[in-house]
Structure formats: C-alpha cells, structure tokens
C-alpha cells in the first residue's frame, strides 16, 4: 500500500505528529503501534503532572494519552495496533507484521516516534550474583500499574531518574518498604518536584555519591551492599553497608531506541545517542524524520509532543513536494552543553534548539557563536542537567553564518 506518511509509534510523539500532520492537510496517514493499544509509555505513568504546557492543566499519563487518542480518532486518522515494524528501507518502504499478516507500505515520509529504552543491569555492570528481583523502574511500574502484580516487598532503588523517584512513592503507597534511593552523582537526576513529592513526603532517604557494589542472593535477591564513591565515582573501601531487600529497582538512564535506525544506516549522534537530524527534524536519509524520545530523551511528554508538532510542519512541506533547505551548517555543543538538537541547520530559517546543560549554573548566558563571533544570546537564570533547555533563534541572527555554529552556556 501507499501512504503520504507512515508514523511508527503511538505514544505522545507519534500521536501528536499524526494530529498535527492532519491539521496541515495531510490525509493519507497511517500510524503503527506494536502494543495492543495506543498511548505508549503514558499508559503506565498513572501519576499526574503531564500536560502543563500543551493542555494547560496537570493530567495523569492515561488521561494525557486519551486526549491525544481522542484528537486522532476525531480526525479519523488510520492506525494499526499490535503491529510491529520490522524494517524500513532507504526508499521509504516500511515492513511490518500485524494480526493481518505482513504489511509493506511505501511512504513519502516515514516518521520515527519509537521512544526510548531503559538502561538495565548490563549497561552499568553491577558485580554480584544474578538472582531474580532486579527490575528496571519501568518494568516494576508496568507490573503494578498495568498488570496488577506487586513485584517486591522490600526494595532499594539505584539511580535517581524520574521513574525511579516515582516508583519509590508508588511502591511505598502499595506497602513496599523502600530503604532508599542511591545516586552515584552528587545531584539528584530527576525533576525537583519529584524529589520533594516522591521522596521527602514519604521520608525515603536519598543518598548521593553512593552506589550498589554487590547484589546478594541465589534464586531471589536477598540483599545488597552499598558503598560511598569518591570524586572519580570509584567506591571507597570501608564505607560498605548492607541492606536486606528482595528487589533492586534500576533508574539509571534512558537511551533512544535505535533498533530500526541502525540497520537503515541513519547517522547517530554521539551525544544524544539518537539519530542525527537537521532543523527540519529530518535524518540523514531524505524523507525519514524523527522526534520524541527516540531522537533525544526528553524530561516531559509535552516536550516530545511539541517537538513532533514541529516535525509535522516540515514533514507536511516535504510531502507536498517542497525540497526543504539543505542544511550544511553543523551545530556543535560547546562548553556547558552536553547535547543539542538539531545537529545541522540551513541558516535560512528560524531554528528551535533543544539542549541539555552539562552542569548546574545560575545566571548563565546561552550563546550561539560562529567563528568566535556571538550571533545570538539569552540570559538563563538557572540551568540544571536534569532540565532540558530550549531556545528559538531567529533566522536574521543565522543568515550571515557559513561555518560551524557553536552553542555554549556559561
């Protein structure tokens, strides 16, 4: 079959892209979702705090998802659930497997909105036994919120990412004893409101500069050893403490899901670990776009949805035959910036940059420079690594730029 746009993933980014494309007059759209229902990760995020930007109220994840699904259904957007995309070709043929067999869809635009994955025990190499009871925070969350199964009775949480903090509260509400959250860095990794409302409210201690150095148990987790770490994050001998628990919950970071992007040969950015895109959110292969957590990991579902809406603007132009400006000017994350999107610009359009600060700063200045010359700047009252920054830079500031653009925060 043929479609103007194939959207892969029915979470906040995919749904927002579908609705926004439809709003731009694109009618031949199909959205593919591998789970049995739409909504993506929002389905299991039953806590509130979603939608403050896009819907101007604080919604729970399922409520946020249902608003987006409702918008898509009202517009009659075609979608298939329980349908897994197996591959994408550089000629933009999407191959998927679903209840009705194989699908081959040739598209003018393919939109990757496949989200991210959690880093697991293998990614951080904790020594010790290999018992059952070590879960990523998202897995524990799915057990409780989707499948009504309590995965443990006594837990320690490694890593202070938002899902870990939210699970500390969720487990405590369900009667699980949470001994503490152990974070190897010297600052919490989640949003401040989560540190307060998920840990402080329930007197769950947060131990900074601590990590798990051993997991005990043969069949099931029986306990862990926790150690302090030094400035180079190396465990300090003699600081070991033992905790009895039947579970270790890992909240140690998210990485964009590149399972479809890598076989396709899309360029991947070393900083975001997602695909590399230009100012149109188009990847290194023309007609293939990416937004949401598979492009770079966002803090808020709203940001992923808003990014997908920006994607829809350029994808709609592409579908209508506009070749889009070629983007030859590379964007380099300079001092104070850990990662930045987009990675290439044309110099002919306004550009919406999103970036992650590399350290905490107060009263900082965000600078866009070219050849040592500042072409645009903005004062930032507070920057934190756990809060993504964004800035819209007008084309007038970029029109004289020819060489690489460097963005710094200091």
């Amino acid at each position: 079959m043929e479609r103007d746009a194939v959207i892969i993933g029915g979470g906040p980014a995919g749904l927002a892209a579908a609705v926004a494309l439809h709003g731009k007059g694109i009618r031949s759209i199909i959205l593919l979702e591998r789970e049995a229902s739409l909504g993506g990760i929002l389905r299991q995020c039953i806590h509130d705090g979603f939608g403050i930007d896009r819907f101007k109220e604080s919604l729970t994840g399922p409520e946020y998802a249902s608003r987006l699904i409702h918008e898509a259904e009202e517009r009659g957007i075609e979608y298939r659930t329980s349908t897994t995309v197996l591959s994408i070709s550089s000629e933009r043929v999407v191959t998927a497997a679903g209840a009705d067999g194989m699908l081959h869809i040739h598209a003018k635009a393919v939109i990757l909105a496949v989200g991210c994955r959690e880093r697991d025990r293998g990614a951080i190499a904790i020594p010790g036994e290999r018992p059952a009871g070590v879960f990523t925070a998202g897995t524990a969350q799915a057990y409780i919120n989707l499948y009504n199964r309590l995965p443990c009775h006594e837990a320690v949480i490694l890593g202070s990412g938002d899902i870990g903090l939210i699970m500390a509260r969720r487990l405590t509400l369900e009667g699980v004893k949470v001994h503490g959250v152990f974070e190897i860095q010297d600052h919490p990794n989640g949003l401040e409101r989560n540190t307060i409302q998920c840990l402080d409210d329930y007197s769950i201690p947060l131990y900074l500069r601590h990590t798990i150095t051993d997991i005990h148990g043969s069949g099931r987790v029986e306990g862990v050893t926790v150690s302090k770490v030094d400035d180079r994050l190396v465990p300090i001998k003699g600081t070991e403490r033992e905790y009895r628990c039947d579970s270790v919950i890992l909240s140690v970071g998210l990485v964009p899901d590149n399972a479809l992007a890598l076989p396709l040969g899309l360029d991947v950015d070393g900083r975001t670990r997602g695909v590399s895109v230009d100012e149109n959110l188009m990847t290194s292969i023309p007609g293939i776009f990416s937004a949401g957590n598979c492009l770079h990991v966002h803090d808020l579902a709203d940001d992923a949805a808003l990014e997908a809406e920006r994607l829809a603007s350029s994808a709609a132009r592409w579908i209508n035959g506009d070749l889009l400006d070629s983007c030859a000017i590379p964007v380099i994350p300079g001092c104070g910036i850990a990662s930045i999107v987009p990675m290439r610009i044309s110099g002919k359009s306004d550009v919406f940059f999103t970036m992650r600060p590399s350290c905490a700063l107060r009263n900082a200045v965000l600078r866009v420079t070219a050849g040592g010359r500042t072409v645009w700047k903005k004062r930032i009252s507070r920057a934190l690594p756990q809060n993504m920054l964004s800035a819209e830079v007008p084309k007038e500031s970029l029109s004289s730029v020819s060489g690489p653009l460097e963005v710094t925060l200091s």
Partner: protein
Amino acid sequence: MKRSYTCVICPNSCFLDVEIREGNVISVSGNQCGRGREWVIGEVTDPRRNFATSVKVRGGEMETVSVRLSSPIPRAMIFPVMAEIRKAEAKAPVHIGDVIISNVLSLGCDVIATRDVAAVGM
C-alpha cells in the same frame, strides 16, 4: 525558625528562605515571583497533594483501573485515603472521569478513574 525550600512551580527552581514562627510564615525571600511566595506559604501551613493509584475492576479487560483524586488533599491524609481506595472495587465498563469513591473520608474530593476499562464477556 528558618527553613529552605526549592520552589517547584516553574523550572527557575528558586531557592526560598522562609522564616516560620508557630506554624506561620513570617517572611519569604529568594522568590522571583508571587507564585513562589504563595506556593511556599501553602507548603508550610497546609501542604496538599494529589496522588494516583489503582482500583480493582471486575469483568474488565484490565484487572485494575488507574485513579486519582479530583483535588489535592492534606498530605497527612494520603495513607488513610489509600486504605479506603484499597477497599474499593469497580465494575467494568469504567470510563475516564467516573467517580469510584465520592467525597472520600469527607475530604470534599472524589476518587476518579483516569482511563477507560472495557467490559469483557464472562
């Protein structure tokens, strides 16, 4: 008594220094706007929270339905309300916004469903 708070109203995350006497706020400093002051006074004198959990569902496509409160409650009432919610049971179909427990513990707020759970043939 002086206490420090980090404002959670917006990403500025102002560090607020609050002087408290006998449970009342005497002064607030460090806030960049009025919302921060309002928030911290509430946080000191009457901290309120909303929270989410799930309620068992009979005859549904899922075993539980996710719920939240229709408005925030005093923080100290979270566990008593949680105990009430644990006793509740809903019958499918459940629709988003359905009241599962009305006026829980006479706090003036309802426990409401946050998703649809369709009925399945039994």
